[in-house]
């Protein structure tokens, strides 16, 4: 008996984090978008170059790319991997569909495990953005003082750029969600949408919309 299945990824807003997560999970992107490939090459280049000036130049190149992935428009509509394809069917989630000629759950289970690993990697990388650069900072003792300063300043800028890019991608996603809700509320008639953004304490960063219709 044949059957079809599909699996959704967790919400993903940042191409920078997604590319890093794919690389982290060892998922090779076939026929990648230009930006995905550029990010991969730039990240590899940082690791490969040894000379300080080359290293700084590699970081600068990486930072130029980071700026290009700070909104959800940079997410590719489809990502082809070795065994399957991720399709951006709604605004911020990828869907993987599959088909099995026999009622054999092995393919489905393998794909589920793979997506779950990608979701976890995405979350971990997003939470620890900048950690990689901080690790790099900790290992620059063998340089001269002047050189250390120069590299440290560059690394600090990279950390800030990565974090800012991720924050902007989330902000962009939230703005789109608000827009979608608002447009639909107006279309339905009689509804108002109140937006509240938490700025302090443990709730900082949470966003709440209340859709109201007077009876």
């Amino acid at each position, binding site marked *: 008996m044949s059957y079809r299945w599909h699996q959704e990824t*967790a*919400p993903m*807003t940042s191409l920078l984090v997604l590319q890093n997560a794919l690389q982290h999970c060892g998922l090779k992107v076939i026929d990648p978008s230009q930006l995905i490939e550029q990010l991969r090459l730039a990240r590899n280049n940082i690791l490969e170059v040894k000379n300080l000036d080359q290293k700084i130049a590699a970081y600068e190149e990486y930072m130029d790319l980071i700026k290009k992935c700070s909104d959800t428009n940079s997410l590719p509509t489809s990502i082809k991997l070795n065994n399957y394809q991720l399709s951006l069917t*709604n*605004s*911020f989630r990828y869907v993987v569909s599959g088909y099995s000629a026999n009622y054999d759950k092995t393919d489905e289970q393998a794909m589920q495990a793979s997506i779950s690993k990608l979701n976890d990697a995405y*979350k971990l990388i*997003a939470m620890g953005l900048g950690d990689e650069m901080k690790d790099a900072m900790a290992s620059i003792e063998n340089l001269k003082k002047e050189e250390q300063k120069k590299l440290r300043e560059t690394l600090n800028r990279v950390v800030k750029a990565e974090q800012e890019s991720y924050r902007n991608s*989330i902000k962009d*996603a*939230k703005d*789109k*969600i608000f827009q*979608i*809700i608002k447009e*639909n*509320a107006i*279309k*339905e008639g009689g509804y108002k949408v*109140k937006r*509240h953004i*938490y700025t*302090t*304490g*443990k*709730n*900082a*960063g*949470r*966003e*709440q*919309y*209340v*859709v*109201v*219709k*007077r*009876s």
Partner: protein
Amino acid sequence: MRQFIRLADKLPSSQIYGPGHRFVIWVQGCSLECPGCWNRDFWSVEAGYTMDVDLLISEISDTDDINGITILGGEPLEQPESVLKLIQSVKKIGLTVMLYSGYEENELNELQLKCLNSSDIVIMGRYVASLRDTGLRWRGSSNQKIKMISDVYQNIDINEQEEVEITIGQDGKVSLAGYPQKWLLDALNDI
């Protein structure tokens, strides 16, 4: 002595379960099992998780910018000792309490009545599917009554309105509270 409460869920701040911004606690377990209930997952006493009431109180007191707490479920009055401790403790730190119960006042024992009388607002009565009205504020069906126990919200204007709340957490997780209409569910499916 440590006291535990069985919970289904909690939301650190909501604007649709009572006046102002409130920390919302859904307790787990309800023997009333009203037909058509929206929270059937909260009926079983086996599901959910237990939490030390002191820990919950400390989490609430660490939450900024809330006016009070709202306890619903499940059936809060089926865990009266823990609920009473929770109510009394949060009132000591200046928060108001809104309590939901599917019971009527004449069905309550002494301890349950103490929970009710220690709250500021109580929403009482079974959920009756045939009387469902999404245009009511804070209630699911028109038989349910709003009782002002203390005078804190005595003069509040209860504008009847349909309310749905969409929250996006720091991690991008979207959650929904209230009684959403189909158009909103469809719109959110596109997100």
